[in-house]
């Protein structure tokens, strides 16, 4: 490997990307010592790699925009949500660790019909992504079931977060489940409308009106991650 033209571009790339073994590296170093041109090619490849790294070292922040008031009661909704959380936090004595290894996939929901399994679970965040009314109904039924199967004296916290097409669940002019949402909210289920999903619809010129019980201001991911860090169960529907 003494001549420059014996070294392919793939080999040079593999060298700068750390893909060569020790023997191959030694060979290439030796060849570069004998060829100024090869040495220059190596430098160029390294420079290119460094340039790309450098260009993306600091990338712009996502720049999330705050959602506007979309319901006359959105601030009230936030206040209600906060007071519910406070109340539940007090009554449940903070958070109880999970002891049941539940499948978070929708298919795993069937396991929650097992009363023993349900009794062992604690707080839940249900994530609705589908605009299919049957799936929305399933989510609401699931929320209701979770409330009804909580152990006496240990109220279970349930939240529903809706994004993508699932946001329709919480849009007052679209949802077929306004009454069910209202009933569940009165049982302290909190409904979150993903701020990102709202933005996306508004960008398309859709005026988003939420049911009064919906709490805007969070992205679905932020809410889910927050709850996972609190050791809640996550169920995607």
């Amino acid at each position, binding site marked *: 490997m003494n001549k420059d033209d014996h070294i392919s571009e793939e080999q040079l790339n593999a060298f700068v990307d750390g893909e060569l073994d020790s023997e191959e590296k030694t060979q290439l170093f030796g060849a570069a010592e004998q060829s100024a041109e090869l040495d220059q090619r190596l430098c160029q490849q390294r420079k290119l790699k460094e340039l790309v790294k450098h260009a993306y070292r600091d990338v712009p922040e*996502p720049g999330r925009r705050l959602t506007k008031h979309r319901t006359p009661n959105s601030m009230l909704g936030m206040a209600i949500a906060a007071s519910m959380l406070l109340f539940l936090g007090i009554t449940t004595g903070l958070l109880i660790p999970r002891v049941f290894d539940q499948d978070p996939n929708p298919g795993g929901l069937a396991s929650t019909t097992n009363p023993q399994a349900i009794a062992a679970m604690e707080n839940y965040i249900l*994530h609705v*992504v589908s605009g299919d009314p049957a799936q929305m109904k399933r989510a609401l039924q699931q929320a209701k079931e979770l409330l009804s199967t909580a152990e006496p004296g240990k109220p279970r916290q349930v939240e529903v977060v809706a994004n993508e097409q699932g946001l329709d669940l919480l849009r007052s002019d679209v949802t077929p489940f306004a009454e069910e949402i209202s009933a569940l909210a009165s049982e302290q289920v909190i409904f979150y409308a993903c701020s990102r999903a709202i933005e996306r619809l508004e960008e398309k010129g859709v005026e988003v009106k939420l049911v009064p019980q919906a709490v805007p201001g969070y992205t679905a991911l932020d809410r889910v991650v927050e709850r996972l*860090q609190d050791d809640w169960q*996550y169920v995607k529907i």
Partner: protein
Amino acid sequence: MAYKKLFGISQRRAFKRLVVNNRERLYRMAYAWTSDPHLADDLVQQTLLKALSNQKQLREFAAAEGWLFRILANCLTDYRRAKREFLSGDNLEIVDKTTPEHQAGEQQLVQKVREAVQKLPINHCQVITLVDLEEFSYASVAQILDIPVGTVMSRLCRGRRALRDHLTDIKPREMPRPAVNIKRVK
């Protein structure tokens, strides 16, 4: 290893931590692929939510990082398919154009490189950024993008060649400054 054994409570917590901790890396990659902060953020949200709801698919915890980037790549593919957009090419607009004057030179270089990266076909762009920004091995990139290692190498080759052509006018003074602030060298 059985799923339940793999994802005992402590492992599940570790998994969640992994997901949360990788958010920034995924965002940087998504931004490199799209040049759109909002779209990149959307893709990362989709990626992490998919990861959380499909953690059963993950067989080896050690492979989790590559798995997250694979979901990200799939989310971008889905997005492009849905939108039928071609993000790379001459019609691409680099969104990040706010540059303080005192950083003009530095930003000019960064912009130039980003534009060059974004002019690449997306499959070349993905390979280059996975290798250069995240230091993934060729084998890992092959797994993430579900392509053979040979394809990774050839895309890398063609991509870097094109990048070099786009960036030939970069003068030495525009290069990142010599490492006067180096604190540690491997």
